């Protein structure tokens, strides 16, 4: 995104060096310092960064904050989706898709996910037990499921993953010109690809989500631009964050055999384990909002028209809410606080029932079939300041 604000930055030292490889590899020590010393930090780029749980949990529900008036820069087409709209447009778009992600709907999508996961693991068992879990399992199975929901064949998976990542590069505050160009090209590719898919659906109607969008457009409830970009959005969120949840969960199991055993032996602990995976390494580090009036955050009054970066990944490590926050502990009391990995309030993740179900299907299938999992090579990462991303996760199942 692009941040344009008047006035000088308050700190000369950059406490949140978005482009620094060390920061991208492990931003958590930086977050800890912000929470401690600068809970409302005016970043040199101009935006206000909020890092404490209490402030973020309140602001993320604040209905005076806008996304519609944010300048997304090269990612401006996001404004054609519910992620970039305030009420009432946000409400209209979200209501069209809500019914597709209810617990009842998710039961149906789960059968598709399960079949996809079992097919991958069948092949692993026939082979030598090794697999790149990143592309071969978490991406593939989530993508198969998304395409089933859309009512289309799962094609162009690798291109869709790459193009989504190129758009993701511009969703954080630290983008450069090269990334902006990649983002613009990626949106162009998606628009062309999706218009083809929609034309094909019009010629061969079905009962998928794309058919529902076409019907909504014909009834005047969605514009063509909204249809195209909402399909893009679901391609993106259909794999981006859930892939990280699954990859990070598998990686944790390679590091902590007791977690593998807990997942297998204590079904009642499974929701807590998934929550803790999301808390300890939150897939999207922040959500961004624009103030529309004076907004008081702790000792700071932020005037209207300023961009706020709410660091949900930092909130999820706030020791005021999560004791010993850098330690993985799936038995921590729920009463202490809910993690904010899925956001909260009206823009909170609509697909979280599905995301949790998809992760559970992968983890359950693994622990039911195998006795353990270990690294079969070095994992590779492509973290940005906004997205946590494991690109390769070579594992061996025993």
């Amino acid at each position, binding site marked *: 995104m692009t941040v344009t604000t008047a006035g000088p930055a308050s700190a000369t030292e950059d406490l949140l060096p978005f482009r620094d490889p060390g920061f991208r590899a492990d931003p958590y020590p930086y977050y800890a310092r912000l929470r401690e010393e600068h809970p409302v930090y005016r970043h040199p780029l101009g935006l206000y960064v909020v890092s404490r749980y209490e402030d973020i949990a309140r602001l993320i529900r604040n209905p005076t904050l806008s996304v519609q008036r944010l300048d997304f820069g090269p990612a401006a087409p996001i404004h054609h989706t519910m992620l970039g709209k305030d009420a009432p447009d946000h409400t209209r778009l979200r209501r069209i898709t809500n*019914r597709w992600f*209810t617990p009842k709907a998710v039961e149906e999508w789960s059968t598709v996910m399960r079949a996809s996961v079992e097919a991958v693991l069948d092949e692993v068992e026939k082979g030598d037990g090794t697999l790149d879990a990143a592309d071969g399992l978490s991406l593939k199975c989530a993508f198969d499921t998304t395409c089933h929901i859309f009512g289309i064949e799962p094609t162009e998976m690798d291109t869709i993953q790459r193009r989504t990542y190129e758009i993701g590069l511009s969703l954080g505050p630290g983008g450069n010109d090269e990334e902006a160009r990649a983002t613009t090209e990626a949106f162009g590719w998606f628009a062309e690809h999706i218009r083809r898919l929609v034309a094909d659906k019009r010629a061969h109607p079905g009962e998928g989500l794309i058919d529902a969008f076409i019907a909504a457009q014909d009834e005047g409830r969605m514009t063509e631009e909204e249809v195209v970009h909402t399909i893009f959005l679901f391609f993106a969120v259909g794999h981006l964050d859930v892939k990280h949840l699954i990859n990070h969960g598998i990686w944790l199991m390679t590091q902590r055999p007791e977690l593998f055993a807990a997942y297998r032996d204590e079904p009642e602990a499974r929701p807590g384990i998934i929550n803790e995976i999301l808390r300890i390494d939150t897939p999207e580090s922040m959500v961004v909002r624009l103030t529309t009036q004076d907004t008081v955050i702790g000792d700071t009054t932020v005037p209207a028209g300023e961009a706020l970066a709410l660091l949900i990944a930092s909130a999820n490590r706030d020791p005021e809410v999560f004791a010993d926050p850098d330690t993985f502990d799936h038995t921590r009391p729920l*009463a202490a606080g809910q993690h904010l990995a899925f956001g*909260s309030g009206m823009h909170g993740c609509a697909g*979280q029932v599905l995301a949790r179900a998809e992760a559970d299907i992968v983890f359950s299938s693994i622990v039911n079939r195998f006795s353990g999992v270990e690294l079969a090579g070095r994992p590779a990462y492509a973290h940005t300041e906004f997205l946590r991303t494991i690109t390769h996760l070579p594992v061996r199942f025993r």
Partner: protein
Amino acid sequence: MKVEVDLRKCQDHGQCVYAAPHLFALDDEGRLSLRSEATDVYVADVAEESAEELYEAAEVCPLQAVTVHE
């Protein structure tokens, strides 16, 4: 019939407000307004004529925090 809202699960997405505007509302801070009446679990009687919107609210809640008791 009765509605039960688990406020420990609720994350104030407001989907119930859109589905059942006669039963749910958000306050000025964007939080479910019935939070002022309960801390953990909110239970209330609901008239039969609101059954349809109540079931929709229960169905679309992303946190599955709304339960309907016949």
